[in-house]
């Protein structure tokens, strides 16, 4: 039977992987908030980030957490481009059904990224193999967690704190929160809505890039893995609320625990069903985030 030590192990493992899911969801919700569109390509972008991190390590020996410093600005730039292409440009061109365009367009972008990854790097499953990342670290003899996971989780928490401070204390962060809440009012208050939206888009994508770096320390990946990450990000946003930083952290942690529990009980067959059902139910219940 499942005793207390196993349950603690479950919870601990779930928490550690879950915070990274939370980061993914945070990126998605920032984009959702600043652009008002659903980024179906978020998972694929994260997948791409994982490959970039992998190659930075394989070719140049840059460890994933240092790679984050390189990936973040790169993805920030990509995010700005993305924001421009899917949010500003359609507004300038006077397109009315921008939402439909964004959904179809981002699906296309996801396909483009996945296909390119297939061509460039083949559909094989890859993983970053660094020996000292896989050392199990014990806590009180009860819980064993791989050091890589712990490191990734710790760094993710650091990122969370940084994002929190950014959104609460800096002018840029406050303006982005303002324009997420009410675009017109924010512009009346003197916020340069156009520029801040671009920055918000860049931030959202770069958060995804950081999440990708963290993920390389915990997961194996292949080009189609993006859809799985997209699902996790969606569930985090649905559960934690759009633009809600603490919410996404809690939601991510919960999802991690739920995932561990589901895998322990049913050998990972039921995982997609569980998550998808949670997502649908959360989406239906949570009206304020719509």
């Amino acid at each position, binding site marked *: 039977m499942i005793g207390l030590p196993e349950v603690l192990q479950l919870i601990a493992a779930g928490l550690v992987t879950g915070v990274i899911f939370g980061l993914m969801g945070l990126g998605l919700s920032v984009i959702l908030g600043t652009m008002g569109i659903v980024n179906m390509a978020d998972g694929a972008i994260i997948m791409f980030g994982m490959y970039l991190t992998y190659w930075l390590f394989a070719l140049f020996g840059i460890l994933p957490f240092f790679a984050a410093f390189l990936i973040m600005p790169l993805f920030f730039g990509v995010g700005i481009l993305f924001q421009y292409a899917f949010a500003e440009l359609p507004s300038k061109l006077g397109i009315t059904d921008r*939402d439909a365009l964004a959904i179809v367009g981002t699906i296309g972008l996801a*396909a483009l990224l996945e296909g390119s990854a297939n061509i460039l790097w083949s559909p094989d499953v890859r993983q970053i193999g660094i020996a000292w990342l896989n050392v199990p670290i014990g806590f009180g003899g009860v819980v064993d967690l791989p050091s890589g996971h712990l490191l990734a989780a710790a760094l993710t928490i650091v990122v969370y704190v940084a994002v929190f401070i950014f959104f609460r204390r800096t002018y840029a962060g406050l303006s982005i929160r303002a324009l997420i809440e009410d675009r017109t009012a924010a512009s009346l208050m003197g916020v340069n809505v156009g520029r801040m939206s671009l920055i918000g888009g860049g931030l959202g994508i770069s958060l995804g890039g950081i999440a990708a770096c963290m993920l390389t320390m915990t997961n194996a990946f292949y080009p189609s893995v993006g859809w799985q990450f997209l699902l996790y990000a969606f569930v985090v946003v649905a559960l934690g609320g759009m633009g809600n930083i603490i919410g996404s952290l809690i939601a991510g942690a919960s999802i991690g625990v739920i995932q561990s529990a589901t895998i322990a009980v049913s050998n990972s067959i039921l995982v997609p069903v569980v998550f998808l059902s949670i997502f649908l139910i959360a989406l*239906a219940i949570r009206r304020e985030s719509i």
Partner: protein
Amino acid sequence: MLIFVAMMVLPLFLLSGFYLYTAWLILYYAILASGWNIGRIGNVISLANFGYVGIGAYSYGLATLNNLPFASALFLSGIVPVICMIPVSFLLMIKLRGLYFSVGTFVVPLIASALIQVFYGTGLYIPFQKAIPINQSYIILATLTFFSVAFTAWMTWSRYGLALRSMFDAEAAAEANGVNTGRLKLIIFLVPAFFGGMAGAALASSLSFLDTDVVFAVGDLLLLILATLIGGAGTVFGPVIGAVIVTILTVVLGIYLPYGHLAVYGVIVIAVVLGKPIIQYYRANLRSRASVKNVTSS
């Protein structure tokens, strides 16, 4: 319309083998694309179309395994997706709007696929003797395409078409004018499920092994959206024309670029989605600039 029917039936007599298979694929995508198109006319962007194929395929497969006659298996494969989508449609349409609705519809086939995986994860084997020759399944597809296009035509050219268009433009105003938006939305959401499910049965009838990855292909979703966009979204024959282009593209790319076809589709989708408005914008702007010039110079 007669030309259309003739063009559909002709390949059956003229082509064979690989070419007939290509024509089969064209009709397959035409059905799915016109199903998506029906939704799009009423601004119901459903991303669940690839799921109808999967549910229909498994319904057909299970029915055939239980020795139901072919006709009933086919009918079941159309009805079961509709029945599955009815509770979903109530849940989604009442609670969600716009892009959240679309995301919800995207999730539904994934749930169905995951559930099927739980029960039939190792795949469903259909005995080889029960497989339908491609000629017959082609006829089935042709009939489905005909009815799907006919439904689109009816929806577009009848007063329902006006209602749908008004719903697309301004939903609240349409409702105020007496358009039963709820019922209309339900119809255009469920009808593609019926056609898509049967198309899934046609697919399953030519396969002897059903696997969730094959019948719940997200790539197909991209292709059918692409087909509709290229062929002209919102028109009656647009999806069919688009399906022709897309299928030929698929076949050609499959020969030359076995792995990267997804990337090409992605580029095309983005180009179409962003490019069309850009072109429209510049056309409109150039025109208005020219007219302004004329006014000011004279």
